[in-house]
Each structure stands twice: as C-alpha cells, then as structure tokens.
C-alpha cells in the first residue's frame, strides 16, 4: 500500500462527522430509538468499518518498498 493521503483525509472526515461537536447541547431528536446524534455516530462507525475493510482487502501490502532497506 503506497502512501495514500486520501485515506487519511477520509478518516479525518469520518471523525469530523462522527463526533457530535456541531450539535447544540439541548438537541433531543429521537430516531429509531436513538438520539439523532448517537445514530449518526453509529452510522459513521459502520462507515469507518466498511472503509477500513475496503482498504485492507483492496490494496495488497507487498507493493511497498521499505524505506529502511
């Protein structure tokens, strides 16, 4: 796997959306039994799991050249 900065960008974006910093503290929308901010956090986590699995299964590691060798 080569250095692919887009992967880091996607993770930063997922963290940015998944952490509920942008909600007012008194928000209390309930969707599917969860507060909306929790539901979004869970969906982001599911997205992060699929994205990580995609990166792991899509890119082989042995194309790397080791900088220390």
């Amino acid at each position: 796997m080569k250095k692919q900065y887009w992967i880091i960008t996607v993770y930063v974006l997922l963290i940015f959306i998944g952490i509920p910093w942008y909600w007012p503290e008194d928000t209390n929308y309930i969707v599917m039994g969860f507060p909306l901010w929790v539901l979004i956090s869970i969906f982001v986590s599911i997205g992060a799991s699929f994205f990580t699995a995609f990166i792991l299964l899509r890119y082989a590691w042995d194309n790397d050249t080791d900088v220390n060798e």
Partner: protein
Amino acid sequence: MNNFQAFDQTALIFIGIYLSTLIIIGFFGYHARQENTLKDFYLAGNGFGLVVISLTFYATQYSGNTLFGYSGMTYRIGYAWIMCVHFMTAIVACYLIFAPKLYKRARQYNYITPTDYLQHRFGSNSLNIVVTVIMVFVLSNYLLAQLMAMGRAMQGLSSADPNIAYQQGVILLTLIMVIYGTLGGIRAVAWTDVIQGSILIVGLIVLLFMLFKQFGSISLATATIQQTQDFSKINVPDANRIREWISYILIVGFGSTLYPQAIQRIYAARSEKILRQGLAFMAFAPLFTALIAVIIGIYAIAYVPGLEGTASDQVLTRILSIIQQNSILGYWLIVILYAAVLAAMMSTADSAMLSISSMLSKDIYSRFINENASEATLTLLGKLFSWCLIIILVWLAIYLSDKASLLKLLDRKFDLLIQLIPAFMLSIHWRGSQALPTFIGIIVGVFISLCLAYGSFNFVHEGKVYGFHPGLIGLVINILITVIGSIFINRRK
C-alpha cells in the same frame, strides 16, 4: 458478580467441562509443535490461518473489562460512551500505519518479540531495555487486572464466603490458564481464543435479543430515560467530553496496536492476505461487542436506576440476573454468557502472559545474560518465567483485592504505551530516525505523562488535561525530541 441465582449442578458441570476443554487444548497444542524453538512456541512456526488469526485478534482485544467496564461507563455518562465504538474501530485503522511494513520485515528477519524489530532497526541496547521495561510493566498491570476480574467472576458462581471464593477463583482459573499456556504456547492460546471468541460473539448477540424480549425496544428504553432524573444522559456531550472523545480515539487507537501481544499477532499470521482479512474482520468487531455493551448500559439506566460508585460497574450482572430469573432460556443464556465472560478474561490474560514470558526470555536473558543459550533452553526458560510471574501476580491479585484505588493509580497503560509510537511507527517510515533521540523522547514523554497524571496540577481533572490524556501531551514532546534530535544527528553526519 453477585446477585445471581446460584447455578445448578448441570450448569456447574457445563462450566467445568468448558474449563477442562482448555487444558485438553493445551495438550493438543503441545503435541502439534513441530520443533522446540521460540518461533514455534511463540508464533506457531509458519503462523495461523484466517479463522484462528481473526478470533485470536478478537478474543485478545476484547477482555472481560470491555463488557463490565463499557456497560458501567455507559451507565454513568450515558449515550456519550458511544465513543467506545469509535475508538475500538480506530485500533484497526491505526494498524494500517505500521502493520504492512512490520509484517514484511517480521517474515523476512524472523522477529519473535516486538523489540526484535527495534534491535534490527536501531541496534541500541538502551532503547531496547527501556521499551521492554515499559511493555513488561504495562502488560503485568493488565494481566493483574484480568486475574482480579477472574476472582470477582468466580464470586458469582460460589455460595462460599466472597473472600474465599475470590481467592479460589483467582488460583483455579489462573492455574488452568498457565497450564494450557505453557503446554501448548501460542497454539494453545490461539486455539482456546477460537472457542472463547466464538462463545463471546454468540453470547452477546443472543443477549441483545434477550434484552429486547425482556425489556422491549431501545425506543422504549430511551423514552423511559427521558422521563427520569437521568434524562441528561441522552443529551449531546459538552465541550470537555468532546475533547475526551478525540483523546480516546487517539490514545486507545494508537496505544492498543502497541501492546506486545498485538504486535506478535501481526508476526503470527501465515500470510499477508490472511492478516489483512483478519484485520478486516476486526474492523467490524466493535459493532457486535462495544456497541452491545453500550446498549446494555442504556437499558440499565432505564430499568436498573440508582446504582452509585463501584456498584455501577456491576450493571451487566444486574441485567443478566433479571434475564436469568425470567425463563429457562434466559437461565441457560446466562450460563453460556458466564462462560463467555470467563473466556474473555482468560483469553486476554493468556496472551499477555505469553508475551511477557517471550520478552523476558528473548529480550532480557538471551540478549544480556546468556547470548549462547539454545532455543530449547530459551523456550524452557520462557515457560519458567510464566510460572514465576503468575505466582507473583496471583499473590498481588489476592493482596490487592480490597485496594481498588491503588490499582487505579497504577493504571496509566495507554499513556505509557503511546510513548512507543516514534520507536515503532515513525522509525518504520522514516529512514532518518535515530536511536538516541528516540530513547530520550520516550524517557521525557513518560516523565511528562506521569507528572501530569499524578502531579496534582489544578488544570488536571480526573487525570486528564482539559479532557485530553496526559500521554498525548507527553507524546507531542516525545515526537518533537525524536524528530529534531534525529535531524540534528543526520546533519552532523
């Protein structure tokens, strides 16, 4: 685990059979060995296939503490502990930073312990010693916590005096663990992990359905909380909690990948493809483990209100006992889950034990005391170290049983572990990284982290600096020292 309806004889026989199976697996592991070498004992020769590597990763990562601690934490702070699903997912993402290159080098140069990489990369004894000391300290502490949890779990099984039940539990379960671990080495540990991991996954998923059946939907639980004085536990977290959230993602995400047993799991995969698939499985594990623990905590807020302090760590037990008393299926589910909880503790503890013994025999004895020791001698010594270590830790687990606050004081494992980031993650990507600044960086990073954690500063609250773990602040200084020092040395050359 008090408050349980005592298990009947059939249930106790079931638990007994489960525990005996672990020793039998130890014998199988012993007979499956191909040669009397460190590589065979600690890495299973050519390594493991997909099912074993996935479940051994899983069983090692998720301990009994995950189930009790995460449901208890949710009970105390509410939905905000959903952050645990994020930081457990972050662990797998952090593996991507160094596992690819480390795996390749491990196969090429036959690494066995984490510091084998450092020896090969830097060739510095002082760096190796400091890293080994940090890893052994952290792991011993981690192992001790698991042994104490085993004792507490056993209290629930026995009608005897709680103190005696605790002591018997620690001694019996640890004895079983050390027998199968020293007989079959990593094979026994990983094969038992397969059983333990499977029981844990199935048990938790069935528990989720039993929760819905017993208490109703999650909507009902959330609506119930809204009507109580705990209504703030469904609110959006405040700014300090948000900073804590970011801090947890960083410190647990990076720190967990640097556990020695986690690094040795990277070495132990049979092929790169199997390792990638195993890690892909782990990317989903938080959804069927940490998330379920959070949901248990939410149901407990709604239906078992009023627990304070250490009692709040027993919410899982309370929920289980309610399910246990309401149906035969519930009763047997609890028996299986009980085995799963024991499994989660033992599978985490056995990996830690084996990892410490490998470091003591290879990184300390072989490197500094007797360089000419044969592989067979080192393997035997590793087993002896396991027994000695376990005897000391069992004594400590019994001695510290009523001194929980003292244990909490020792528990800064992630603050210490992440100080190893420059040594492992930076050095594997940056050729210019040098041993001396890496060594100094670790020492300064550890010093700053511990000073901030224990120094009674007025800007430190609950062991955190404005919500951030002290280890992260130590790490920033640590990385600066490593990078600036290495650039300086490289220029002088």
